[in-house]
Structure formats: structure tokens, C-alpha cells
């Protein structure tokens, strides 16, 4: 017997691009009111350009220019909808697949590629306001969820101080912060202790936070049924988070529910959770061969639910013209060229870079080893020139 009756995942657009909000969607319909055609087109462009970027990076990897690429193909709807609901003052903690979000927040996508070319473990200056508070990718599955919770807690502490108060007792209600924190992770990540602790801490301190899981059905070769017997959104509800399941390939569902939840979070409504049902159309990474573990039918089924094509039909019905799509195609081509060029001309770090930022302050071991390496390298040059 089911212990909870699951509502339908929130959906506005059918896979065919018809606007037909289901019952669960009704409550969120108002969130779409502010989206005019310009905004809708921008969201389409976000998805299309991200896909072009992914394609180019996959090519670059095939050509030996990148060690690895992690495509987001198929998940653009979930990502763009939620990212477009974020306000500039919000902070965002990604996993490693949120290229669409990176772009929307202002990160130069060339910098996102940098770590996959092996020149950095980071890639962009998170303190630069131009980067929209988009934090670095995190590869240890789920660990960024706690960073996000800590960050959201800092937003609570700031607001508490601003309100002239000094206490945050157990059981206190959430506090208006006017800013929120979003954290992205995958279905596999929900099994990690850290993700669960992050929800527990978030509930405890009523942080202004949105947990956004892209349930793309697979954690590399492991199906989501191995991680969870029940819909993942229920876990969050169990921790006391407001939690909703959406059709993650419906960009409008992602936008509407994210928008509502982020407003609620900023207003003191406490932590929120979205389970976006989506699918990883490509391989886990370019090192992966999904034909080893999943059926082609499943792929075909999900290709038919593609978030971009679906949305294309919809905005055409809303008046988007051919010239718009042509322009997007041109922009996509230009972006691909820019990425290729940026990657091929990416500078390799100096040897000394290794030692430079291990510590913020002076460190004798770093100084000693950097000096040693320099002498050692020079000894070859000396030898060569001799």
C-alpha cells in the first residue's frame, strides 16, 4: 500500500508543446504571468545555446582537446527554468552538469571547460559580481549541498543581525532574507549522507534555500530504483521541507515552481525541494558508454520528451518567428566557435601555480617546494643550453 498519495508531477506543457497545465500545475500558473514573449524567447535561447555548447565540447573531447566532457543534453529545461527564476542576489551551488545555469549567471562558458582541459580545478572568480554568485562545480557527490546550506545559514544570520536580534533558538520560524540559495544535485547524490545532513540542517535553521534535484534516472550505470524505492521528493517532505515533483523537461514547470519556492524561501518560508523528472540523453561523461546498461527504447522515449523541441513548438504558438530561430542558430554557431577558440588558446598554468594558493597566507613548505622546483626545472635548461 502506498504510504502517501503522490500528486501528478507539475506540468504545463505536454511533450508535444501544448499548453495544458495539469491539476498539480494550477497552483503555480500565476508564476507564469510575467513571462512575455521576449522572456520566453530568452529561455529558449538559453537552452539552445547550452546544447550547442555541449555539442562543441563533446567534439573537442573527441578531438583530444579535453580530457573529459560532462554533457547536460536533455536537462536544459530543468536547469534554465530554475536558473531564470533566481534573482541576481541569490547564490547558486552547482554539481558539475549545470552548464545552462553557469551561462545564465554570467560565467564565461570557456571557463567552465577549463577544468576539463586540466588547467584548473575551478575556473572562474566566484567573487566577481559579473558571475552571478554562481559557485564552483563540485565533484565529490553531494558535498556542495552542505556548503549551500551553510551559505543559506549565513543569509539567515545576516538577516537576524540586520533585524537587531541575536538569537536563533531551536524551533524558531524562518526569517525574511530577500535572498536565497539554490543547490543542484543528481538522483544518485540523494543517497549521500551529506545531502541528507544538508536537508536536516536546512530544516533546523529554516534556511532560505531551494534544493533542486535533477532526477535523470541514472547515476552513471545505476538506475534510480537502486537509490530510492519511492519518489525522491518525499524524502525532503519527510525532513520537513516543502517538496514538489515536476516534469523536469517542461521548462515552464521548472520556472513556475522554482519561482514560487524561491519567493517563499526569501520571505522566510524555509527550505524547499524540487524533484525534476528528466533524463540524461547523452553519456554520463565522454568516458561512458550508456549502451552497456540501458535500453534504446528508454532513450527514444525520452528523446520524444525533449525540453527544447517541446518549448520551440510552444513559443511558435506564442508568436516566435522564424527569424528568431535563425538568429539563435547563428548565435549558437558563434558560441561554438568562441568556445573552440577559447579552449585551444587556453593558457597552461605555470609550474609555480601549484603552490600559489594552497594557503591564503605565507607557508614555508610551499615556498621551499616552489623554490626547489624552480631550481630543478632550471637545472635542465642549464644542462640543455650547456
Amino acid at each position, binding site marked *: 500500500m502506498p504510504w502517501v498519495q503522490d500528486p501528478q508531477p507539475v506540468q504545463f506543457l505536454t511533450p508535444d508543446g501544448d499548453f495544458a497545465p495539469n491539476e498539480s500545475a494550477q497552483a503555480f500558473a500565476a508564476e507564469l504571468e510575467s513571462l512575455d514573449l521576449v522572456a520566453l524567447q530568452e529561455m529558449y535561447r538559453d537552452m539552445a545555446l547550452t546544447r550547442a555548447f555541449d555539442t562543441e565540447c563533446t567534439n573537442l573531447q573527441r578531438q583530444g582537446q579535453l580530457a573529459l566532457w560532462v554533457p547536460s543534453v536533455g536537462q536544459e529545461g530543468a536547469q534554465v527554468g530554475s536558473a531564470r527564476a533566481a534573482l541576481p542576489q541569490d547564490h547558486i551551488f552547482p554539481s558539475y552538469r549545470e552548464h545552462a545555469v553557469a551561462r545564465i549567471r554570467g560565467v564565461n562558458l570557456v571557463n567552465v571547460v577549463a577544468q576539463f582541459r586540466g588547467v*584548473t580545478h*575551478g575556473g572562474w572568480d566566484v567573487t566577481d559580481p559579473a558571475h552571478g554568485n554562481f559557485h564552483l562545480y563540485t565533484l565529490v557527490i553531494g*558535498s556542495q549541498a552542505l556548503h549551500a546550506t*551553510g551559505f543559506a545559514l549565513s543569509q539567515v*544570520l545576516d538577516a537576524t543581525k540586520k533585524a537587531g536580534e541575536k538569537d536563533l533558538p*531551536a524551533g524558531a520560524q524562518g526569517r525574511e532574507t530577500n535572498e536565497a540559495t539554490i543547490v543542484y544535485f543528481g538522483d544518485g547524490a540523494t543517497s549521500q549522507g*551529506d545531502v541528507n545532513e*544538508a536537508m536536516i540542517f536546512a530544516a533546523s535553521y529554516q534556511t532560505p534555500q531551494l534544493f533542486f534535484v535533477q532526477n535523470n534516472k541514472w547515476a552513471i550505470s545505476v538506475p534510480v530504483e537502486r537509490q530510492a524505492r519511492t519518489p525522491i521528493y518525499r524524502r525532503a517532505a519527510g525532513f520537513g521541507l516543502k517538496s514538489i515533483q515536476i516534469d523536469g523537461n517542461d521548462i515552464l514547470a521548472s520556472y513556475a515552481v522554482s519561482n514560487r519556492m524561491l519567493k517563499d524561501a526569501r520571505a522566510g518560508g524555509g527550505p524547499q525541494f524540487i524533484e525534476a523528472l528528466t533524463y540524461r540523453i547523452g553519456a554520463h561523461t565522454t568516458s561512458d558508454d550508456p549502451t552497456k546498461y540501458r535500453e534504446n527504447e528508454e532513450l527514444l522515449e525520452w528523446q520524444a520528451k525533449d525540453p527544447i523541441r517541446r518549448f520551440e513548438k510552444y513559443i511558435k504558438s506564442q508568436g516566435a518567428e522564424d527569424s528568431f530561430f535563425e538568429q539563435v542558430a547563428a548565435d549558437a554557431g558563434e558560441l561554438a566557435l568562441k568556445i573552440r577558440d577559447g579552449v585551444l588558446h587556453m593558457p597552461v598554468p605555470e609550474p609555480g601555480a601549484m603552490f600559489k594558493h594552497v594557503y*591564503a597566507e605565507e607557508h614555508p613548505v610551499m615556498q621551499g617546494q616552489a623554490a626547489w622546483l624552480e631550481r630543478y626545472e632550471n637545472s635542465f635548461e642549464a644542462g640543455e643550453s650547456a
Partner: protein
Amino acid sequence: MSEAEVVNMPIAKAINEGLRRAMADNDRVILMGEDIGTLGGVFRVTDALQAEFGSARVLDTPLAESGIIGSAIGLAMNGYRPVCEIQFDGFIFPGFDQITSQLAKLTSRHDGLLNFPVVIRVPYGGHIGAVEHHQESPEAYFAHTPGLRLVSPSTANDAYWMIQQAIASNDPVMFFEPKAKYWAKGDVALEGEPLGLHKTRVARIGKDVTVVGHGAMVPVLLQAAQVAQSEGTSIEVLDLRSISPIDYDPILESVRKTGRLVVAQEAPGSVSVGSEIAATVAEKAFYSLQAPVLRVSGYDTPFPPAKLEGLYLPDADRVLEAVDRTLSY
């Protein structure tokens, strides 16, 4: 420095005072941990701080060490300077991934553009007769990890100053508190210029053998030196204070004088801080050493039941046994 500024107090109180002062000086300093608020910590090191600064600056957390460290990282990203308490040494391991794969690496992952001034306070070590996981010395795990700084005071004065220096550091600092010595009193100079956070200190001058250790080992070494003196051996005692980085100059200088070194620690000896010091000194002072560097350590076993801790933990006799051995070369 006027005498009025010197106060005699136990180490636990000195840390408490250091925390209070750091919090008063900078309102971005916050404390986090299990039972640190109303209770003031199971060792009362944070006593009365929540009452003074409020529960939004002294945070009792849910019971999860990974959660504590991981959230502290996020707080640091927004300009806070969190001081986390781990209730007992043996309970730091659930937070290990956040410490080693995140906290320690985040400064370099960010190319130095963000700092992570997180302090992790770890009451550590034996001699309190406690149950499993409550008496361990896990320094080696963190000393092996690039990106962390490790310090450990052995006196009340150092405790007072070093906690403030640790909080002021823009790097993650692990602060190992010799819990068996929480109630040991010492003079604290409340004003003045403290010794650098990462400096080794000569705790006693001698000429025949050098012995080095940190935290609760230091009083044991001083006791051994006292006994040795009565037997005609002059021991120089160094208080390491900083476990990572290690300030080797005073150690090498001392060894060049004595030609003999004994390294003492409560932790198991294999792949330990003592191994590192022995290896480095044997390399750097190769021509000065008249005997091999000897290590006196906990045995390479789990910390034993309390009734055996007296045998497990290096005491003055075991230090002297090693001193005698170095002298026999």
C-alpha cells in the same frame, strides 16, 4: 607588559577567554558545534558565550560532524569566520571528507580568490580515563593533508593567544586542545605581542639530548628533563606548538648542539607526525646526529581501554628510556 595584565587561569578558561575576545573584536566570528550553547560544551570551554553573544553567534548544531564542517565552509564563503567544536577527537571522522576534500582544497580550487578561515577545535588525547573514541590523537591524518594548518597549545598563555591567532588566520586551522590539561593553570598575559602561531618554542634549555613534543606531551617532557637532570643528563625540551607547518629551525639548531633527538607523541607511531620529524631531522642534520632520532609514541593499536592507557601513553619513564638509548650510541 604590566603585571596587572597577567592572570592565572586553567587552559580551558584561557581558550574561553580567547574565544570571547575574538568574538568581541569581530562580529563575523561565530561558534558552532554540539552542546556548545546552553551547556557551554561538555568541557565548558564555550561556557557563558551563548548567553553573552546570543544563539545566532554560538550555534548548537544538529548531531552531524560532516554537517558542521560542511556548513562552516558555506558560512566562510559569505565572510563568516566559524569556529567549529568537535566534541571528542574520535568523532572527527564523519567530517573527514568535508575537511580533507573540501575545506583543505577550497582555497586552491578558488585560486585564492576566496578564503576559508575556519577553525576546527579538537579536544584530543588521553589521560582522562574515558571510553572508546574519547582519547585519540588524530593529528597525523590532518598533518598529511595539504591546505590545513595544525597547532596545539601546551600552556594557558599559548591557549589564550593561539586560539585568537587561529581565528585571525585566513587559512583553515585545526586547533588541537590537550583535554587532559584543560584544568592545568598557568599565567596568561592578556595583552602584549604573542609568539608567532607557527613557532616552535624552547621550553627548557639543555645540552645533551633534545626532546620535542606538543600539547599534553610537553609537561611530560619537562618532567623527564627534571628527572634526567638529577641523574646528570641535560635535556633540551622543545614545545612544537605548530604541527603543520613545523618550525624546523629551532629543532635543527638544538640538534646541532645536542646531536641527539627524541620525538614524543601520544598518537600511534607509524606514519605519524613523529615519523615526519624523525625523517626530516635525520635528513637535514645528517652530519650532526650522533644517534638515530628515536620516537616515543602510542603503540600501533587502537587506543586501549582506560585501565591500560597508562601503559599506552608515553610517560616520563618511556621518554627517559629513549633518551638513555640515544645516549648509548
